[in-house]
């Protein structure tokens, strides 16, 4: 997973594919490294993810909490309708902004 700073102060973190049990640990490490870069906002890009399982959701929430601790913004972009439905049902949009694909 590569990270880019397309907007000054914004750290984009691409999902790099599905966020499932077999990939989350690797994505977590990448995200940790990316967050070492100073920024004012982190954006998780799910445009490359079709499936997010329980661990994937946990990872997203972990990311959110870290950002919260560091007092930087966090949002999710590129969620497909199914993912959007899950996020909504779990009330995640109440925690951070989520943009549908």
């Amino acid at each position, binding site marked *: 997973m590569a990270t880019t700073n397309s907007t000054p102060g914004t750290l984009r973190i691409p999902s790099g594919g599905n966020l499932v049990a077999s990939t989350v640990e690797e994505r*977590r490490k990448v995200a940790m490294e990316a967050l070492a870069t100073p920024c004012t906002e982190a954006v998780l890009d799910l445009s490359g993810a079709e499936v997010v*399982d329980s661990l994937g959701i*946990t990872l997203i929430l*972990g990311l959110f*909490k*870290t950002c919260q601790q560091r007092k930087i913004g966090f949002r999710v972009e590129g969620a497909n309708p199914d993912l959007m439905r899950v996020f909504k049902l779990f009330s995640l949009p109440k925690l951070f902004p989520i943009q549908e694909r």
Partner: protein
Amino acid sequence: MASLADESIIAEFVAESREHLSVVEPDLLAMEDLGAKVSQEVINRVFRAIHSLKGGAGFFAFEALKRLSHAMEGVLMLVRDGKLQPTPEVMDSLFTGVDRLRAMLDDIQASEGVPIAKELAALEAILGGQGVKVGETVKGREKGTKRDFDLDAESVRSALKRGMNLFRAVAYLHRDIKDQGMAPLAFLNNALSVGTCLDAFIDIEAIADLEHCLEEDLPVTLLFATVLEPDLAALALKLPAEQVKALEVKALKESLKAKPGKVSEAPAPAPEPAPAPAEPEAAQAEPEAAAEGSPDERSEAKGPREGSKDTANETLRVRVDLLTNLMNLAGELVLGRNQLVRAINDYRNEIPGLGAILQNVNQVTTEMQEGIMQTRMQPIGTVFNRFPRIIRDMSRQLSKQIEVQIEGAEVELDKSIVEMLVDPLTHIIRNCADHAIESPAERKKAGKNAVGVIHLHAYHEGGQINIAVHDDGRGIDAKKVLAKAVSKGLVSKAQAGEMTEREIVNLVFAPGFSTAEQVSDISGRGVGMDVVRTNVEKLGGHVEVETEVGMGTTVRLRLPLTLAIIPSMIVGVGEHRFAIPQVNVVEFVWIKASEVAQRIEQVQGALVLRLRDQLLPLVRLADTLGIQRTFQDPETGEVKEDRRASIADRRALAGKPPQEAPEREGDRRKDWRSDYNIIVLRVGKNQYGVIVDELFDIEEIVVKPLSMFIQNTRCFSGATILGDGRVIMILDAGGVATVSQLHFTDLQAEELRRAEEERRKAALKASRRRSVILFEGAKGERFAVPQDHVLRLERIVRSRIEHIGDREYIEYRGEGLPLVRLDRHLEVRPLAQDLKELFLVIPKVPGQDATARPPAGILISEILDALDVEVELKKVEFKGPGLLGSAVVQDHLTLFLDPIDLLRSAGLVGGAA
């Protein structure tokens, strides 16, 4: 605590937790007994119970409860995993932990105030010794903070309007979704296929940061609406039943009224997940092992969920107050039925079909009332099962070895009775362990097994429940009891001298009595057995003790099945009516007025009825209750005051036949209205008779508690309302006996005395019974000789008598047989001279062969009879040889003779004269 945590939900949690703990204790005892050999099933059962309790505690934010159960769970997990042996130290920590949990549950709202530091320290020391930090073992399960659902009130209203049930369901992302092979979307789709998700949120408090986030199993809490019942809802959501809680609709509606625009419902903290086959760490560390577990192990692990499916259709948790209300309504219905039947019974024949309708109403009411009563029945085992633990602790404290045996734990009693039995039985059991069971050394010295046994036995008998607590200890020493009672001033020395052993043993029930040498933590303050008797009698029961020194003691409690609706005999005294519970009624005895003098007598100043060789103490209910006695004048029909002091002192004297008692016109003894109705009542093993004026019907009565102003009236156990609307009192058979100061033991002694006298008389009678030959000497002079003293009776012709000197002979079988005339030896008249025929009584000489030559014959004038007589011989004024005495036989004075003695006197038989 959560803002909207409904009290009823908390009450349910407390009830469930208590049930969990009641199950835990026997299993902990098994763990202690079996040590490392204890089965995994037992440990898992304990683990699940404590885990569930912890889950609920966390859910409702009872922190102290949660912390303690959490520490206990940690220790249990180590035992389960074989990392810790269930040593006495470990088990002690668990037992004391259970005690504290129970104490907290007793007043859940004050649970934070219950000190748990000591118990926690013990558990933490054990965990620390195993290199485990408290909290570490259940990492990931302790998360959750308050958060409210946030939703549109309209959607809640709509769901309720459509008859949906609302649930708070908690799904853990890992355990309940990922580990079940589902994606979150699949989980939600499944949920939405059976209902509506009104709101949901993930509790993210557990996540600290990205570094450890994947280790956390986050709970998703859903406010879920469905038409399914709770058990089915859990199944449909594929969640453990504990994680799906029904919300009380009433509270929700009230909440909606209070906040029309918005519902803030429910404490959001997630309940603990269902017990799992292994902790998360273990599951992660050994995924294959978990997956490869045997089918049995897997099914065991799924136990709770499957169990809920199996039992859900069979049982239903219902609040006790609901059942109590139903019970009261059933009582009112029974009263209504009784009144209805009474009111329209007279129209049975006039209205076609009314009889069948009444019968149907009658039957359905009875069945419904019995059914509702059944719902309140609880097995006595719920009380019995707590004693092994108590005895375990006491055994250690007292350095004794005691085994508890339980029999009949399935016997059911009304819930209220079961609850009220806890204290009395605990007192008895503690007394057994403390006083009765000897130390192992003492027992061995007495030739007993070192392990003492306390046997608890519940069984049905005669419509009552008997609970016997037997120990094989030292028994109660009546002498010691009496000495103690005298020293404490409970009885005077004079009284002590007159007490029977049974009465002495019963002194253990006297207030303030204790033979314990020292007051201990356990007993010795002398309040126990008094409390036992008081509580048991409050329940309409009875308690008695049987003991044998050196062998043991049995305390037996006799209790009614229920206190609510009981069949009772309605009796009348004067204008008053009373109900006597049928369970106390043995039989009715009707004594005709003319027979009173023969049937009723006085023993030691007390009235008794002789009933089938048994002396039954009698009580006149009017006297006991202070009601004026009355009788109906046979001539005028007027009701007058009965001033007779005693029935037995009536004009006819006791023991005299009726004809000897003087009669007069209008004699009450001949009038049926003076007949006596006696109800024989049972109190424990004893029986007594109650004299009442009238007997009415047997009715099912609804027991109403006594007003506090008359609660201490010993004669009454309650009140009820009759079919005619009249309020009457229910008699307490034991109380009436006590107030009437009946002394059963005196009567038992009297019965024994009489029985002995009867036996002696019978023996004497048997000795008096004799077979005799009745004959006449001179005209009008009658004699009798025992048949066994007579060899033969012969008729002779007077002319055949020969004389040699003064002696007379007759030829008898070719030889001369000497003859004896009675008048020559006794002061009787000679035989008439004109008799041509005479008779001979030939005596039989003892020890002589029947064919031997007889020594002589006694001349008599006539043989009258050969018969059996029962006579008491009286001394005769004159003396003579062979004269035994006289008696009246066939209305004639008869002299009884010993013929051998007579012949001996005449020198015709050898031996001393």
